[in-house]
């Protein structure tokens, strides 16, 4: 049930965008608009969360593990 709803949600979001010309994209380059503003911080947070919870990943391929308890 969730998967069809997720697909519909994605399709609606992607089709509902206005065309933004290249010279109108300056705001999108601001630091707060990046997907990862601090890669070292994101990496450490992901590692800690994965070592304390049963789920991990979702933002890329999984990579290797560690013996973190």
């Amino acid at each position, binding site marked *: 049930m969730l998967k069809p709803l997720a697909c519909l949600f994605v399709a609606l979001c992607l089709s509902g965008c206005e065309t933004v010309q290249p*010279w109108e994209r300056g705001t999108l380059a601001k630091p707060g608009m*990046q997907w990862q503003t601090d890669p*070292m911080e994101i990496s450490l947070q992901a590692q800690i969360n994965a070592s304390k919870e*049963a789920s991990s*990943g979702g933002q*890329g*391929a999984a990579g290797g*593990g560690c013996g973190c*308890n």
Partner: protein
Amino acid sequence: MSGPADKRPTLLALTSSALLLPAYQGVRADAAPEFIELGMRYSKYEEDNTQGSKTFGGSSQRYDIDAAQFHLLAPVADNWAVAVDVQWEDMSGASPWFVGQSLDGGPKVIMSGASIEDTRTEVSVTTRYYYDRGNAGLNYVRSKEDDYDSNAIALDGSFNSADGMTTYSGAISTSRDDIEPTQGSVPTNTLKNDKDISSAWIGVSRIVSKNAIVRFGLAYTYREGFLTDPYKKNDKRPGERNEWAFSTGYRHYFFWPDGALQADYRYFDDDWGVASHTLNLAWHQNLWRDTQLIPFARYYSQGEADFFANIADTDKRYYADDYRLSSFGAVTVGLRVRQQIGNWAITAVGERYETDESWGVYSGDESPALVNYWRYSFGLDYVFR
């Protein structure tokens, strides 16, 4: 309204850089770095002691970890860059060994007793090639501990649509992990073993408006081999695990008060019966020209694995009393501050993570071993302009 016909020189400069801006951005934008960048972080991670009422033998200290991270990004040609990341950790403390039944019938945790000491060193090397409408990277990671050795390789790429409004991304990875538990204060459930992890991810991102961007991703991970925790007394898990994760993210910039909303959500599901929801929210506030104040919050809720029980039934095929496989909810709140001073940047972060079974959206027995922690980080970055 501006258009191509009335572009001034300054606007042309902006246009040139904006043309390189992809809808999807990973660690770096599509344009290769122009300067060498160096970064370091020191982090202190401290878990709360396990409450005396939840343990046999009274209050028990849990993990303390010191972590140091180093990052180097260097252009090696016009369209080619290399990144090296090194992370070193020193950990000490005790972890839950098993859960037993107290005289009043409730579950209580037995800790591993003597303090565990371990260090971990991780080295990651990434080479990335930038082409007209995207980039591709190859990454190798080696992680080494006294009792754990992991080698992983990953390949990723992204490709922008002709109008630059949409970016399609993908990544694959594989790893081989070897486990050789340290024989110490508690007996382990294996002497030597291994596991393999394979993963694939696809993503699409899209510019929604002049000040908003959205992305979606789908990940699949397959684990095979020894997936049991070697240091847990009552732990025997299946030798395979299939995981799926759907994620979405949104960024919206507000001209007043010169800040950006960052929202990310992930739904996770696997064939062990675990499902989870994760919501991350952050507000990226610009103050003056060189200061950023970033409060953030995270909500996490997971449902327990099919074979989890507080008092494990060791007659079953699979069993575990590991709190990480139980149902619980977790809330993180924190603050990150970044100050730019010339070519230098100083970063400081503090966060608090708390768990409770009643905070989750899934029902289940509350594990007595749930963990709360504090984490502080301090960092310096330098760009060789």
